[in-house]
């Protein structure tokens, strides 16, 4: 070394002792999980505010602004209602019940789908953040899941409004009024959000390695919706086809959605188990896949 200068070390700040970080080589394995989860929790405000500001920026230049949050799913529901009534006119369900089942099914499905599609892009689109700041990368898909939830929330009053108008217009409808079974709804939404977030972690990682994953996802989500009890009722499945409700990560939550919102029933143990199973499986598989590879993201982007 050519240097012969002297550097007087400054007195060490005692607080530094608790902030020692060691960066070492790694293979595709999980980093220490407890510090990771602590850091994730400490910086959750970043994910929440990122979701809030992304939402704000998305509708800033639109004349109707956040009204689109309600209009969009409502128009979508109307389109699918036309499709369903044209394909199966006079099906087993009365028109209002069919419309309500379709609406709440679509709203819930799109909540999960938005978690996955926006989350899948969150890493490749967040390149500047990934390259220039160190933070748990899972915060980016998490932020997308929060944003999807924020965009889902306004659809609930819309659904309730449609339901009330329907009950007023058709007093004989079988649709339930207030029931304590509605207390299952937060459970269903938490399971939907966790499943969506877990799947977002999988697709976000895949999208880093294969940039056309997102194109494929467009078709996957469309097929996924047709295989989910959104356009059809869970009870309409017969025999071996019932397996569709269990091998589909969103099958159990959409089944539960229909059971609580449309039938006003409580959830049985089997439905609760499968909702929890897919939420836990998605988080564990997605979490492992994502976190074990996230240290490579800065190189791959």
């Amino acid at each position, binding site marked *: 070394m050519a240097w012969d200068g002297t*550097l007087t070390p*400054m007195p060490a700040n005692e607080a530094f*002792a608790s*902030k*020692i970080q060691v960066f070492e080589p790694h293979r595709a394995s999980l980093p220490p999980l407890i510090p990771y989860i602590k850091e994730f929790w400490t910086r959750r405000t970043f994910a929440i505010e990122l979701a809030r500001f992304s939402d704000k920026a998305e509708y800033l230049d639109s004349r109707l602004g956040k009204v689109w949050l309600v209009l969009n799913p409502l128009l979508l529901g109307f389109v699918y209602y036309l499709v369903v009534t044209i394909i199966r006119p006079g099906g087993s369900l009365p028109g209002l019940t069919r419309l309500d089942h379709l609406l709440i099914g679509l709203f819930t499905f799109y909540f999960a789908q938005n978690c996955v599609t926006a989350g899948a892009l969150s890493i490749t689109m967040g390149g*500047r953040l990934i390259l220039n700041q160190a933070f748990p990368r899972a915060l980016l898909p998490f932020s997308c899941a929060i944003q999807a939830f924020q965009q889902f929330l306004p659809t609930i009053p819309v659904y309730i409004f449609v339901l009330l108008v329907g009950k007023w217009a058709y007093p004989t409808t079988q649709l339930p009024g207030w029931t304590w079974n509605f207390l299952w709804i937060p459970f269903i939404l938490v399971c939907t959000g966790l499943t969506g977030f877990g799947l977002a972690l999988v697709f976000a990682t895949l999208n880093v390695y294969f940039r056309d994953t997102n194109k494929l996802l467009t078709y996957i989500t469309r097929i996924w919706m047709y295989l989910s009890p959104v356009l059809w009722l869970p009870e309409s499945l017969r025999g071996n086809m019932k397996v569709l409700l269990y091998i589909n990560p969103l099958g159990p939550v959409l089944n539960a959605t229909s059971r609580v919102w449309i039938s006003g029933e409580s959830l049985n143990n089997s439905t609760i188990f499968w909702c929890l199973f897919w939420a836990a499986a998605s988080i564990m598989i997605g979490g492992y896949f994502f976190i074990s590879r996230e240290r490579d993201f800065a190189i791959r982007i």
Partner: protein
Amino acid sequence: MPQDLAIRIEDLSITYKVSLEAKRTLKNAVMRASLKQKERTRTIEAVKHLSLDLPHGSVLGIVGSNGAGKSTLMRSIAGILSPTEGRIIVNGKISTLLALGVGFNPALSGRDNIILGGLASGLNMDEISNKTDEIAEFAALPDGFIDLPVRTYSSGMYGRLSFAVAVSMTPDILLLDEALSAGDAAFKEKSFERMRQLCAEARTILIVSHALATVTDLCDVAIWMHKGALVAKGKPEQIVDDYLKFLNVGSLPSNYEDM
């Protein structure tokens, strides 16, 4: 690691493979698999066997040509890139300013971006709320601009706001990559003043700069990197002098050839 050290780098090497394909896609992967071909890649040795100890309170300047590994070194110290070999131990809270406007959303106002940028840098909401006015004042934006979308800012205003957010933190270690080039002469002087203030508070600062005067003015120690390797470490004036000679001559000085 001794408590007086802010950063210890032990035999650090960072190597990575870059794909020679125009785009990595699932379609290409399937095609390659069907033809039993391997992906064409190139191995980049960005940092080679670099060791360095940096005491608390040092201001380290890093000089070197493009591709020398300076930014890779900074990112590895920040924990953004992992070492391939060796180890980095960092003793303190790090703040980075490796690029301008990280975390910013051009559609949002300066005020909103202060919150986003601050949160991205690791500040919490209370800290940001307390500092918003201070940051806006430091960035010296014209009247009313703080509430306008950042996409309406000039590049100088954008740079000043980014810089103001980064230095609003009170990190133990601050990593700056060409950030001092933000703004005009008056803002540069203000930036230097803030740097000196941070140094006086015993912060450790690492500066990557092609503006060699910055290195000699602000730093008390400098390193010169070339093609991923550490060529020399020493007093900034000496390092800058040797580096300038190298730039003029085009080859390493004979006393560095063995390094």
